[in-house]
């Protein structure tokens, strides 16, 4: 019970982690990636907006500082700042721009009229930590209000020729900038959010549109399965057209194969009728003729082997693998060495180790097996098997030192095998099968005279 429950959860999890739909997969991926991308973009924009705000505040305060510096004068009473120069905001109470000049030890020397209402505490002026001489300091912080601060320490030479260190502090209220930033962020996130929504929507539409051919293909396949159409149409986009064409080819081959099976079965059934009729006749005899029975049984056996061989001949020829010929022939030679142990024919095999042949292993074994079997039967003591690869053909020659085949019989041998019915009982079907295999591969067989004295079977097997 628990196990089953666990299994169900596991299955559900698998479904979640890899949905069984291309559209859903793509959508899910973009639902993960898009927010991440947009968040990163938003963060980057927010940061750069803030940075530019700060840098312009810095510039502004620096300008104020230089203006102030230009307006400072000394007299016996102390520092004076010309009221005609400088930003008017400095003269207006609580304007948001404040300036203070003080001694590094903290003694307040001058403050702008605007800052009168300001609580000039230690934190505000950084009295305990004045900037080094000649070094600008800029920072922002929140006191009661957000503030940007510019500080600079300089040494002023008084009229008495005395050096006097001065710390300038310019403060600016950042409330406006803060709300500007907030407004920007609001707008930014709203914009990005709508972009995300639109993009997702657009992607859903694109996916639907892009995957439409796949749905069409599925639909067409269903039609095909239900027999509403014989082949897939040819209007798919490029990527699917290859698949559709392959499927069509496969279907066609399957069709051909079925056709061949049907024909073979028909042929077989038809050709078995005759010997069966003879057998039935013989069975009604009180003393059946054993030779007759034997003949008919042998004939039926041959018909069956022959037709089955024809039916299983592999047909999809462009799906064939490449085979090494040498090991194949070696296998056959060791088989024949056992079968013809007493005759003990000498085999000479001249095939390069890398000699390749395109075809089905069973077909090649059958073809070469039949030819070699004949050679073993015919030979006196030697058989030679030679193979050579040329660009277009693989040439295989099987020769023996037997009696050979008379010229007038050669053509007849090659033509046999179109129909097994035409065989006389007792005749081997090996050559007929061989001829059939050769035909199905578009290969050629030629029978000639061997230098060894017997027959020479030359095969021209297409190399591609």
């Amino acid at each position, binding site marked *: 019970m628990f196990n089953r429950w666990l299994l169900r959860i596991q299955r559900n999890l698998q479904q979640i982690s890899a949905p069984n739909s291309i559209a859903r997969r793509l959508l899910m991926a973009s639902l993960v990636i898009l927010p991440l991308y947009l968040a990163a973009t938003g963060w980057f924009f927010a940061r750069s907006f803030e940075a530019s705000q700060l840098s312009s505040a810095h510039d502004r305060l620096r300008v104020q500082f230089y203006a102030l510096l230009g307006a400072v004068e000394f007299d016996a009473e102390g520092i004076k700042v010309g009221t005609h120069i400088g930003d008017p905001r400095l003269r207006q109470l609580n304007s948001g721009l404040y300036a203070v000049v003080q001694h590094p030890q903290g003694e307040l020397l001058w403050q702008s009229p605007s800052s009168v209402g300001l609580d000039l505490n230690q934190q505000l002026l950084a009295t305990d930590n004045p900037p080094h001489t000649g070094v600008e300091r800029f920072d922002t912080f929140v006191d009661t209000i957000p503030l940007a601060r510019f500080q600079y320490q300089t040494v002023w030479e008084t009229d008495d020729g005395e050096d006097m260190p001065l710390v300038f502090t310019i403060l600016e209220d950042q409330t406006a900038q803060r709300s500007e930033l907030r407004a920007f962020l609001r707008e930014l996130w709203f914009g990005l959010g709508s972009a995300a929504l639109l993009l997702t929507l657009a992607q859903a539409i694109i996916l639907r549109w892009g995957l439409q051919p796949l749905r069409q293909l599925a639909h067409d396949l269903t039609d095909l399965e239900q027999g509403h159409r014989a082949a897939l149409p040819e209007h798919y986009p490029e990527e699917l057209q290859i698949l559709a064409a392959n499927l069509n080819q496969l279907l066609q081959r399957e069709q051909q194969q079925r056709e061949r099976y049907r024909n073979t079965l028909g042929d077989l059934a038809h050709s078995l009728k005759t010997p069966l009729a003879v057998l039935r006749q013989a069975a009604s005899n009180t003393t059946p003729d054993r030779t007759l029975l034997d003949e008919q049984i042998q004939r039926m056996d041959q018909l069956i082997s022959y037709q089955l061989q024809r039916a299983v001949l592999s047909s999809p020829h462009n799906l064939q693998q490449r085979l090494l010929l040498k090991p194949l022939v070696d*296998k056959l030679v*060791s088989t024949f060495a*056992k*079968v013809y*142990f007493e005759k003990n024919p000498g085999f000479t095999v001249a095939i390069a180790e890398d000699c390749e042949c395109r075809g089905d*292993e*069973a077909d090649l*074994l059958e073809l070469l097996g039949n030819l070699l*079997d004949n050679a073993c039967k015919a030979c006196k003591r030697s058989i030679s098997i030679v193979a050579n690869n040329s660009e277009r053909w693989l040439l295989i020659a099987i020769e023996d030192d037997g009696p050979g085949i008379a010229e007038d019989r050669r053509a007849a041998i090659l033509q046999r095998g179109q129909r097994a019915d035409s065989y006389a009982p007792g005749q081997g079907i090996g050559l007929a099968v061989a001829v059939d295999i050769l035909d199905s591969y578009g290969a050629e067989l030629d029978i000639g005279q061997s230098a060894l004295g017997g027959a020479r079977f030359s095969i021209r097997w297409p190399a591609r």
Partner: protein
Amino acid sequence: MRLLLVEDEAPLRTQLAQQLEQHGYAVDCAGDGREALYQVREFDYDLAVIDLGLPVIDGLSVIRSIREQQKRFPILVLTARGRWQDKVEGLEAGGDDYVAKPFHIEEVLARLNALLRRSGGFASPLLEFGRLAIDTAKQEVRVDTKAIEFTAFEYKALLYLVHHHGQVVSKTELTEHLYDQDFDRDSNVIEVFIGRLRKKLDPDQTLKPISTIRGRGYRFELASAADV
């Protein structure tokens, strides 16, 4: 000769076993691969006939397994599929010859005969030992061109000794390889048969083909013409 017949089709198995027995083989039958491997482990065979299409363990695996056990007796492969691929596979696995179904019993017998000769080291069906000649194809025995009549059992015993010529064959071994499993081993029938064999082959005691090794068994002493 003790022969293991492995075939799953009961009617064919029974018929074939009968025919083989008629031709002098002591036949054990097995209906599937596992049974066959059990028999091979338990008993000592001179020959096996194994069908490739077997239930439980297929024929090819049975043959491979027999060869892995270092059993060297000849194996005749029966195959219903006549394709060379099947024949090649059967012989590659360790078979020594094949017969395709449907077959004539004569063909099976001829092949078995050839395999036995081959395993005994004889190349031709005619076994010659000087004045003695045995035609295994016709089952004829001649001494100095004079044909000698043997009963089926005498012939079997002679052939077993001949196939193991130069080796000591114990009475038990002879019994096991000549009779079916249920034979009463205590009988001294073997001694009687050997005595008759000697009398028929060598009435004037000049040939001395079979010698008795006391306490161990018998040995066929004549040298084969092929060995010389």
